């Protein structure tokens, strides 16, 4: 039976909090399972380093993801190569799996537009800052693929629990239901929208229930159980591509927790208790998968150390690379606004460049 047809109040789980198997382990090879582990470790380590870069003034505001690796990695690993991903602003862990280099993520949060310039074969949409607006883009792209007869693609879109309150969430899922678009709507319910708790977002019993309003399946999954997330996402992806039957969208609610601050500009101690954080830390997806992998002989001390070392190196290299990229040329501001620069913009650019030459960069840069 598919994991998708069930009461939206139930939660799909494969691993319990101690890594014990309580559900059907998805059909993944040993390499893939270890890769899943490594990707989560990489995300966690990247996150730690990014927060510290921000503290040191080497990066701007940054939204940490720790705690959410299970949902990010579990779901992105369930995608096929040609599938598309529509991230929010916190999806850098999943983005790596989809082929976005860490350097690019760093550049983005260092304030370079180039951070959003994915390679043409990376079907990852730019970071979406305005909440839930990306849902419509995901629906539209999925719909376009269907109209074009590209049967082999699914379109996953990420957003938060807070994001379900926006009108665009409603419109995006409603269009998807009406037009049977091959979407997987993936809600990272991390219990908080900055300081606003889940109960203040909606009186809906669960977020998964909201799918009822759009006529397709809604399913809750333990978002800190990467294997459960993988399974549910994989089922949803397959349903989206189902060539025999109607291709249908799915809403997945991945129940999880953000361990850290909303962004580096946020202080969560103002609005939530340490107790709560501790309770959720017991569900940490990384030790959970690690225990399972150790117990099933897929990991040992040595291989774990190797992973540790390799993710540290990878992140360090990415930071070096990102920091060696020069500040973008100011003229870049003007260059991609339109395919062809209109006269008034060219004039503005020329006046600006002339003044810059005259007075030097220092006259512009504030401390």
């Amino acid at each position, binding site marked *: 039976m598919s994991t998708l047809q069930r009461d939206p109040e139930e939660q799909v789980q494969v691993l319990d909090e101690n890594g014990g198997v309580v559900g059907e382990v998805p059909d993944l090879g040993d390499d893939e399972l270890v890769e899943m582990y490594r990707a989560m470790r990489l995300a966690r380590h990247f996150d730690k380093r990014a927060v510290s870069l921000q503290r040191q003034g080497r990066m701007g505001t940054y939204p940490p993801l720790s705690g959410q690796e299970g949902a990010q990695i579990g779901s992105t690993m369930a995608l096929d190569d040609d599938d598309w991903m529509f991230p929010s602003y916190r999806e850098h862990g999943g983005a790596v799996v989809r082929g976005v280099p860490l350097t690019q993520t760093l550049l983005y949060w260092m304030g370079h537009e180039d951070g959003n310039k994915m390679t043409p074969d990376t079907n990852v949409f*730019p970071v979406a800052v305005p909440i839930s607006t990306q849902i*419509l*883009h995901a629906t*539209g792209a999925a719909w376009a693929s269907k109209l074009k007869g590209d049967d082999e693609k699914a379109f996953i879109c990420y957003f938060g629990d807070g994001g379900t309150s926006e009108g665009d969430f409603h419109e995006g899922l409603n269009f998807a239901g009406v037009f049977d678009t091959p979407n997987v709507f993936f809600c990272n319910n991390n219990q908080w929208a900055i300081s606003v708790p889940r109960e203040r977002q909606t009186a809906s019993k669960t977020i998964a229930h909201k799918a009822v309003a759009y006529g397709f399946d809604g399913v809750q999954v333990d978002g800190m159980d990467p294997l459960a997330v993988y399974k549910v996402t994989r089922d949803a992806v397959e349903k989206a591509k189902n060539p025999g039957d109607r291709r249908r969208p799915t809403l997945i609610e991945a129940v999880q927790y953000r361990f850290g601050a909303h962004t580096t500009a946020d202080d969560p101690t103002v609005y939530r208790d340490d107790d709560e954080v501790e309770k959720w830390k017991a569900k940490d997806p990384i030790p959970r998968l690690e225990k399972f992998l150790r117990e099933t002989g897929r990991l040992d001390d040595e291989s774990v150390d190797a992973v540790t070392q390799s993710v540290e190196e990878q992140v360090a290299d990415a930071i070096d690379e990102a920091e060696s990229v020069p500040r973008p040329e100011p003229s870049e501001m003007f260059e991609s*606004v339109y395919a062809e620069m209109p006269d008034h913009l060219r004039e503005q650019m020329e006046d600006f460049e002339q003044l810059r030459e005259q007075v030097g960069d220092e006259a512009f840069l504030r401390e």
Partner: protein
Amino acid sequence: MSTQNLTLVQAVRDGLYTEMKQDDDVLVMGEDVGKNGGVFRATEGLYNEFGDDRVIDTPLAESGIVGTAIGMAAYGLKPVPEMQFSGFMYPAFDQIVSHAARLRNRSRGRFTCPLVVRAPYGGGIRAPEHHSESKEAFYAHEAGLKVVIPSTPYDTKGLLISAIRDPDPVIFLEPKLIYRAFRGEVPEEDYTVPLGEAAVRREGTDISVFTYGAMSRPTQEAAENLSEEGIDVEVVDLRTVSPLDEAAIVESFKKTGRAAVVHEAPRKGGLAGEITAVIQEEALLYQEAPVERITGFDVPFPLYALEDYYLPSVARIEEGIRNAVEF
């Protein structure tokens, strides 16, 4: 080239038809655009011709329409979403300004957004509240968008085809007051009228009057009337209000030294102010009188019992032009 004698709204339809015929990626979507052919019949017959996959009735949700169209455009289609009236575009405002306008820039060209948002626009048809808006200034203030407002059937088809082929998002506002007010010769074949180029509708030496959309005709009428008083008016139809054809504006102004701008949109923050600023930046030394702003008033567009008083009438246009000439 063979031509047809079409109304402006028929020219819209013909533009859509022509471009859909030759480019399978073009599709039309919106509220009632399908079987119903649009509430103004701008998409009439397209549903039968191209089917439900290219002429798509959507749920009633403007953000949904534009937002999904952005996703389609990024994926490689060329959607032409219709907003049923420009007064109902605001639910889509966020998607237009935060995304359509910025997708190219945000991704440094990796993703682009070749879509055309069409909307019937402006007052004068005795319609209910919110059906008579003219807020082109909102869109003209957002970098990354182009804003087109045609005033003749010929231009309408040619500009619409240009807009659909344009690699960037275009807001295409159709003055519904003149949807059926007159006919004009329109080639059956495909042709383009370039975006960003104004057209001189009447040459004159005493004053340059800049206008667009439904105001183009009363402005020309005022010009004719004034010629009897010995005032020789040049009428420049801007056609595209963003980017403005500043070269044409300045050139005409340098010739006449006086100017008026006629638009039905409210005055404060309207395009007349922008055009005035361009003129005095580029040609202050030629200026012999203040630029007259002959515009809608700074009030919500009234219900129809008063709409004729709101809209710049020929009398108001004449008066404004006289003021500038007699200054």
